């Protein structure tokens, strides 16, 4: 069965995030709702389609690949791996 697994990679809090800072300072700040926004962080989002027996196995597979192949750099990034919301088994013909 194929599962969709998403990966979010972003800088750890200790490392500054110039893109997030610029979005907050130059775009969010111009919004009428700006005072509600406390922080903006940017990152990278990847969507994997993985063959596995279960969603847990699909997530584990992706985590392993991301670690092994340094798709994220553990020195400076934090990574979130989870099944993609709304993901469901692919129905043939759809």
């Amino acid at each position, binding site marked *: 069965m194929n599962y969709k697994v998403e990966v979010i990679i972003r*800088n750890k809090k*200790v490392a*500054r995030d*110039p*893109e997030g*800072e*610029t979005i907050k300072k130059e775009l969010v700040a111009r919004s009428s709702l700006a005072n509600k926004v406390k922080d903006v962080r940017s990152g990278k989002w990847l969507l994997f389609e993985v063959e596995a027996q279960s969603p847990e196995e699909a997530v584990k597979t992706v985590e392993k690949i991301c670690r092994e192949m340094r798709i994220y*750099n553990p020195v400076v990034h934090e990574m979130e791996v989870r099944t993609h919301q709304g993901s469901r088994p692919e129905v043939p013909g759809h």
Partner: protein
Amino acid sequence: MNLYGMQGEVVWYKEFRQTDWDAVVLAGGFSYADRLRAGVIASVTKAMDEVVEAAEEGKPVLGICNGFQMLVERGLMGDVALLHNANNRFVCKWIKVKVVNTRTPWTLDYEQGEVVDMPVAHAEGRFFSEREPDSVVFKYIENPNGSLWDVAGVHAAGRRNVVGLMPHPERAAEDVLAPPGRGPGGSKVWTSLRKALKSGW
């Protein structure tokens, strides 16, 4: 090409065998369009397996700019990272750097603490580490990218034959390359290498 009395060649990455060479320079530029992160994809190529072998044999290895990013992404430089510049832009300018470690084959011709001119040209050069490493070789006097502790270049973890830096010593190797008011601050990188290859280091 003959540079500073040394014979060099630009080698296509698929044809690179480290056993053919006494030293390796990973030049700057771009690799794989900087996809995912600068240098990360090049860092897992067969050519980089050869570079790791050269490094382990103790051969002088220098990574400049994208070459430095490859060494970092390969994990050769310890627990460090090169992030997007603090101003989130590509920075291309001449800056001053200080040589803080002359005990490498790439810097032995400099005076300890010597301040020299070199250009930088990168978008992902902001040095990051959880704590200041003891492997710093070059520091910015004019920090162009928000690097922590003004780090411009380091040697590999536990290996002084492998050095990486964001500034471009090859673009500051001769008088004719330096703009008015700046000097060829990179030339001693090459005279250092010549000395190191000739008489050890």
